[in-house]
């Protein structure tokens, strides 16, 4: 069983040592990052377009059925625009994307954008709740592991994080569902119309990501607790809790929040999977059922939307990071 992990998990330590660099005025930084975001935004619909064209099979034929009359298929082709030269289609796609015009669903005939925007809040709140859960697990446990390193507490934390990293969140979701919705019905089994519905899926998401972040918090805290300013804080007679949480954690959180921000994108991906497990009517369900029904405009629009949100989130994290840590304003 392949675990849902990202290549980022193996090398986050790069972010741990504070880079020193020339201080760049904030607006120049904003400009740079905006240009990068703009280029990404241009690239995403291009990739989405060509990926969907590379997939074998004529969409019109799939939608209409293989035994449909040729004129129906031809009709569908012209509706989808797949009978025209690819470059012409591409041009039209980019232009319509620029106008936030994603077409209408082949199945329900509703505008794709409306379908997406109806479903997105649920996916977003699931990802946010999952991230909160992850931080709530990672920060206290990570601080504790760092403070009592090489004790039973620390080993406990390591075991927890090893297990948490290895367990795929969809499997965890199923177990949680069986335990706390079926065996002990504390939480609802289906649907997504109250915050209660989000508890189990966000815990399932949070444990997995929290296990990754826990190690990061531990490493960063150990590094910070060894720094000289901690001696200063202690020499002022501050209680140990203040030294840890106010002085050390504040600095340790910088790399942690960066990774958390990057992982937020993956959180969206995880949320999409967990929507299946928990039957939540979110964006993931929309895209998946569109795939099953070969609803191409919805697949296209949905994929584009998720990718765009992902890069937008990373853009915002980048900006926030340089605001929080004014020393690291480097390109």
């Amino acid at each position: 069983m392949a675990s849902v992990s990202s290549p980022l998990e193996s090398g986050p330590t790069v972010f741990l040592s504070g880079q020193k660099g020339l201080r760049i005025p904030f607006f120049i930084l904003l400009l740079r990052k905006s240009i990068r975001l703009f280029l990404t935004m241009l690239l995403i619909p291009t990739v989405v377009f060509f990926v969907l064209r590379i997939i074998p099979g004529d969409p019109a034929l799939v939608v209409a059925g293989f035994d449909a009359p040729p004129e129906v298929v031809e009709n569908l082709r012209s509706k989808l625009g797949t009978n025209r030269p690819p470059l012409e289609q591409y041009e039209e796609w980019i232009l319509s994307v620029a106008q936030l015009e994603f077409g209408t669903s082949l199945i329900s005939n509703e505008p794709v954008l409306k379908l997406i925007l109806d479903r997105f809040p649920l996916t977003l709140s699931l990802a946010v709740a999952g991230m909160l859960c992850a931080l709530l697990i990672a920060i206290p446990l990570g601080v504790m592991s760092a403070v009592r390193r090489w004790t039973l507490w620390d080993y406990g934390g390591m075991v927890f994080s090893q297990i948490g990293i290895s367990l795929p969140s969809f499997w965890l979701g199923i177990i949680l569902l069986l335990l706390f919705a079926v065996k002990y019905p504390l939480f609802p089994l289906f649907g997504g119309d109250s915050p209660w519905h989000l508890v189990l899926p966000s815990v399932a998401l949070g444990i997995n990501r929290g296990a990754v972040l826990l190690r990061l918090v531990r490493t960063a805290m150990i590094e910070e607790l060894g720094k000289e300013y901690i001696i200063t804080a202690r020499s002022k007679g501050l209680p140990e809790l203040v030294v840890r949480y106010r002085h050390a954690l504040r600095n340790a959180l910088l790399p942690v929040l960066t990774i958390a921000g990057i992982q937020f994108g993956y959180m969206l991906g995880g949320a999409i999977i967990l929507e299946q497990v928990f039957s939540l009517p979110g964006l993931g369900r929309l895209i998946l059922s569109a795939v099953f029904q070969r609803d191409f405009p919805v697949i296209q629009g949905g994929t584009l939307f998720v990718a765009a949100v992902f890069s937008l989130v990373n853009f915002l994290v980048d900006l926030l990071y340089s605001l929080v840590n004014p020393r690291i304003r480097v390109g």
Partner: protein
Amino acid sequence: MGTEVLLEIKDLSVEFTAHQRKIPAVRGIDLTILPGQFHALVGESGAGKTVTSLSILRLLPSNVTSLRGSIKFNDHDLLQLSEEVMRNLRGREISMIFQEPAKYLNPSLKAGVQVMEAIRYHMGYSEKAARERVCELFEKVGLSDPELAFDRYPHEFSVGMKQRVMIAMAISCNPSLLIADEPTTSLDVGVQRQIIHLLLDLQRSSKMAILYITHDLGIVRYAADVISIMYAGKIIESAPKDLLFTSPLHPYTRLLLASIPSREKRGTRLQGIPGTVPNPEDIPPGCAFHPRCPLAQQKCKENVPPLVRIEAGHRCACFFPGKEIRSNP
């Protein structure tokens, strides 16, 4: 009562363990500081000065495996106090400034906030009152525009300014003892002088005692009341400043003094001390200085000279105090 004692260190020994070897950093020192006194502790790096000062605050790193002796502060033995009582003394009664202010300030907290902490914890000031107090302190340590300085982050100050922030932090609760661990070593010469003068002013105006740790005898020449010289984890000579400069007794002190450039010595070749400071892992038996000492005899190799009182206030640990050193060219 002029004879009150503020801090009395007796037979303090500190041992580290690294790579399964015991490293004696401090080997039984006695040190007395009177209220309001400027006491300079001078020695080369590795002599155990910083370890001594961190023992006073009980902030030694965790690889210290043995800490013996007593440190009496206003008649309480600091080494026997509970952690909580000790914490109440830190910052309020005894505070400390360090060699590299850039590293010893928290990079992500505003300067004012860092100075404010001790005031709020120890003196229970409200946020607003503490802010006012910080601005007063900033003005006292010579930071122009205290309001602006309050909201700045450490990296926005020059090194000298950072050290001023550290000093403001250290004196914020009117401590009776300030430990200054090489506070000027990382500064430019001009700034060094300013910081020393600032410390002197503060010492005089608030009757605060200062334990000033340095490797540079020249720097404390005008400021110190009493100077103690440390070598390889021991104090080898201690005397009021004038006495130490006019009639140094220990050969190490005399060689140190000879190595300070001065106007009188213009035109002559400056003397260095042959050899190097012994590695704390491998301290010579007997008098630790004997391998470098021009006066060393067989006795020095076998016996440790005790620190004995030679005359009022002047103590020296040498079998031949004051014996003439023949310079061999």
